[in-house]
C-alpha cells in the first residue's frame, strides 16, 4: 500500500468513527471509566487498535513541522528530557506515554484510544505482525531521519535509521543466548518480586527494557542501526508499546505491597517537558505525582474488571460501603483451566491418579490478580493490591471412609513412585475425619493449593507440559493402622484465582 493510499484509507476510517468508538467505549466502561490498556499479543490482527494507531501515526507525520505533536517532535521530547538509569526513569515515562496517548486520541477523533502493552513473555516476544504488514506501523515505511543531538542523551548525534533488526516472525526470546529465557513470565516475575524500588527499577530498566531497545534496533555489524537502539527510539511505533509494558509492570509492582513506595526523595520537575492533546506545553508535572495511577486516565487489563469498576464506585462512597464493596471484590471469579472425570480407587497399597489438560497454565501461573484490599481495621481507603494468581486443584472424592487413620499425600507431576514428602512435587496432605453418616462419608471435595509446587517445578525446568498429573498416595497415619480403607478419586478440576 502506498502512503497516499493509506491516507485515503485513513480518511475513510475517520468518516466511520462508530466502528472504533463502539469497541473502545465498551472497554472504557469496563475500565471503570478509564482507558483500558490491553495486551497487544492477544489482539487479533483485525483488532481496531491497529487501524486506529496507524491513523494516529500517519496524522502525526502530516502535521505542520512547527506543531509540537508531530511524530518527530514527540521523539525529540525523549531525546531532550528522558532520564535513563536514574531513579525517575519510570516516573517520567508514565507522563510521556500518557500525553502521547491523548494526542493519538485527539488526532483520530477517538477520545477512548488506549495504547496496548507489548507483553514480551507471550508469543516468543515477537512484534505483532501488523507492525510489519500495516505500513504506517512499520518504521521502514516512514524512513524518518533521526539526526539530532542532545546533551541529555549524549555528546554524539543520533544517526539511526528506519529499520528493525527484529524481523517479522522473530521474537526477543529468539535473540537470547541459547537456553536463556529472560523475557519469560517466570523471569519477569522475579523482577516483580524485587523487595525495593531501587532493585526493581534497575532490573526492569537494565534487563527487559534495555535489551528490548537494543535487540529491536540491532542490525548486523557495520550497518546503520535502527531507531529503537538509540535516543530517537520513539520514531519506531513499537517504542510506545514497549514502554507501556514497562509502565504496566511498574503499576503491578507498586500495587503489590504497601512497602513498595515509589515516591522518590528528589521530586524531579517535568514542567513543559510534554505537550497535551492540543499541542500545548504541560506546565505542571513532576516525578512523584506520577506514582499514583488515580492521577491518570488509564488502567491495565491485568487489573480485574471488578476492581476496575469499583474504582469509580468507591470514590465518594460512604466509608462503610467502601469496605463492603472492597471486600466483595477480593472474591475473584475463578478461571477454569481444565477438568477431568476419572474413577480411580486409592488405598494404602495403591495410589490414585488423574491427569488434567490445563489450558493457559503458564499464563495463569505467571500472571497476577489485582484486587481492592481492605481491612475493617484500616483507617485509609481501600487500595489496589496485586498478588500472584493461585492454582487450585479441587478433588472430587467418592466412597470415602469416615474417620480413618490414613493420610493422603498429594503430588503434582511426580516422577514414577516418588513418595518424598518435600521437594517440588509434594503439595501437602489431607485426611478423612468424623463422618456422622456411618463408615463411608458422602461425596467430598478437597481443595489443594498447588501453586507452590508448580512454581518450583517451573523454576527447576521440570514443568515441560501444560498437563497436570495429580497423584493421591495414602499412607498410614499411625503405626498399625488398618489397611482396608479406600476411596475413589472421581474428578479433578483445576482453577486459577
Amino acid at each position: 500500500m502506498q502512503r497516499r493510499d493509506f491516507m485515503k484509507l485513513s480518511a475513510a476510517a475517520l468518516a466511520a468513527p462508530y466502528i472504533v468508538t463502539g469497541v473502545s467505549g465498551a472497554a472504557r466502561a469496563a475500565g471503570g471509566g478509564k482507558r483500558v490498556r490491553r495486551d497487544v499479543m492477544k489482539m487479533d490482527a483485525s483488532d481496531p487498535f491497529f487501524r486506529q494507531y496507524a491513523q494516529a501515526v500517519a496524522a502525526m507525520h502530516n502535521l505542520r513541522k512547527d506543531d509540537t505533536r508531530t511524530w518527530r517532535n514527540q521523539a525529540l521530547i525523549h531525546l531532550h528530557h528522558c532520564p535513563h538509569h536514574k531513579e525517575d526513569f519510570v516516573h517520567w515515562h508514565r507522563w510521556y506515554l500518557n500525553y502521547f496517548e491523548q494526542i493519538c486520541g485527539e488526532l483520530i477523533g477517538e477520545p477512548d484510544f488506549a495504547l496496548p502493552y507489548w507483553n514480551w513473555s507471550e508469543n516468543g516476544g515477537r512484534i505483532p505482525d501488523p507492525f510489519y504488514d500495516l505500513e504506517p506501523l512499520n518504521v521502514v515505511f516512514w524512513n524518518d531521519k533521526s539526526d539530532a543531538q542532545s546533551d541529555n542523551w549524549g555528546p554524539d548525534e543520533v544517526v539511526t535509521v528506519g529499520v528493525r533488526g527484529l524481523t517479522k516472525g522473530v521474537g526477543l526470546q529468539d535473540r537470547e543466548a541459547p537456553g536463556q529465557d529472560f523475557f519469560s513470565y517466570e523471569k519477569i516475575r522475579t523482577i516483580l518480586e524485587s523487595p525495593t524500588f531501587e532493585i526493581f527499577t534497575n532490573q526492569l530498566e537494565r534487563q527487559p527494557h534495555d535489551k528490548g531497545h537494543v535487540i529491536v534496533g540491532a542490525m548486523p555489524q557495520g550497518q546503520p542501526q535502527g531507531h529503537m537502539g538509540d535516543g530517537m527510539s520513539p520514531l519506531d511505533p513499537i517504542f510506545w508499546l514497549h514502554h507501556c509494558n514497562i509502565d504496566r509492570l511498574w503499576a503491578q509492582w507498586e500495587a503489590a505491597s504497601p512497602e513498595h513506595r515509589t515516591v522518590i526523595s528528589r521530586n524531579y520537575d517535568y514542567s513543559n517537558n510534554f505537550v497535551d492533546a492540543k499541542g500545548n506545553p504541560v506546565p505542571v508535572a513532576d516525578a512523584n505525582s506520577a506514582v499514583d495511577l488515580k492521577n491518570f486516565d488509564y488502567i491495565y487489563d491485568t487489573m480485574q474488571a471488578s476492581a476496575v469498576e469499583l474504582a469509580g464506585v468507591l470514590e465518594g462512597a460512604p466509608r462503610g460501603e467502601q469496605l463492603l464493596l472492597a471486600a466483595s471484590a477480593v472474591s475473584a471469579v475463578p478461571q477454569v483451566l481444565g477438568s477431568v472425570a476419572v474413577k480411580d480407587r486409592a488405598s494404602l497399597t495403591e495410589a490414585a491418579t488423574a491427569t488434567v489438560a490445563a489450558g493457559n497454565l503458564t499464563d495463569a501461573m505467571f500472571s497476577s490478580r489485582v484486587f481492592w484490599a481492605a481491612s475493617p481495621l484500616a483507617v485509609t481507603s481501600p487500595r489496589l493490591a496485586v498478588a500472584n494468581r493461585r492454582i487450585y486443584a479441587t478433588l472430587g472424592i467418592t466412597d470415602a471412609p469416615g474417620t480413618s487413620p490414613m493420610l493422603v499425600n498429594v503430588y503434582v507431576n511426580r516422577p514414577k513412585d516418588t513418595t518424598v514428602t518435600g521437594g517440588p512435587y509434594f503439595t501437602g496432605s489431607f485426611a478423612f475425619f468424623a463422618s456422622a453418616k456411618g463408615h463411608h462419608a458422602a461425596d467430598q471435595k478437597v481443595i489443594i493449593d498447588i501453586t507452590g509446587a508448580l512454581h518450583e517445578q517451573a523454576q527447576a525446568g521440570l514443568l515441560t507440559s501444560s498437563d497436570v498429573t495429580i497423584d493421591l498416595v495414602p499412607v498410614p497415619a499411625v503405626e498399625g493402622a488398618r489397611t482396608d480403607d479406600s476411596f475413589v478419586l472421581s474428578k479433578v478440576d483445576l482453577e486459577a484465582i
Partner: protein
Amino acid sequence: MVVMPPVAALVAVFLTVLAPAPPGAGEGAGTAFAAEGAGAAATGAEATGTAAARATVAVTAADADAAGRGDGYLTLLLEPVRTVPREPYLVVIEARPGNAPEAEAEPIGSVAFHPPPRDGDVGEFILTVPRRLLLRAADDGGLVVSVRLMPAAEGGRLTTSALRIAGASLRRP
C-alpha cells in the same frame, strides 16, 4: 559517569585472581583482578564476544541469612572499554559456586546498554541470585560471576567490543 553502589550496601566483596577456565569455556583476554576491597573498581579481565571476564564475590553465611527466604542480589559494575559504533551486543552473566566446575554455571541475567555503551561510562546492574545458589556459594568458595558479550543482531558478530568488570558485590535489600 562512574556509578558506584552505596558503600553501606556493600557486603564483604573481593575480586580475586582467577585460574584460567577450561578450554572452550570462553576464558580469554583475562588479566586477573587484584583484590581491592569492598566495591572497589579494579582493572580486570575483559569480556568480549569470544572471551569471558570473571570475578569472585565472597559469600558468607550472613549474606545468605540476610536474604531471608528470598533470593539474593548482586550489583555488577560493567565498564565498556572498547566500543565501536554499529556493533550492538548483549551481556550474558552467569554464576556458579567457586569450587563448582564451569559446566555448572547458570545464567543469572542478561543485560544491555541503552543508551548505547560509551567507553568509560560504567553501568550498574542489579541481578537476582537464586537463594539456593547463594547458599551453595557460601559453603563452596564464593560466587564466581562470568560475563561475556553476544551479538544483539541476527547474524551479527563482534570483532572489537569489550568491557570489564569494574566491581561486583552482594547487596542487602
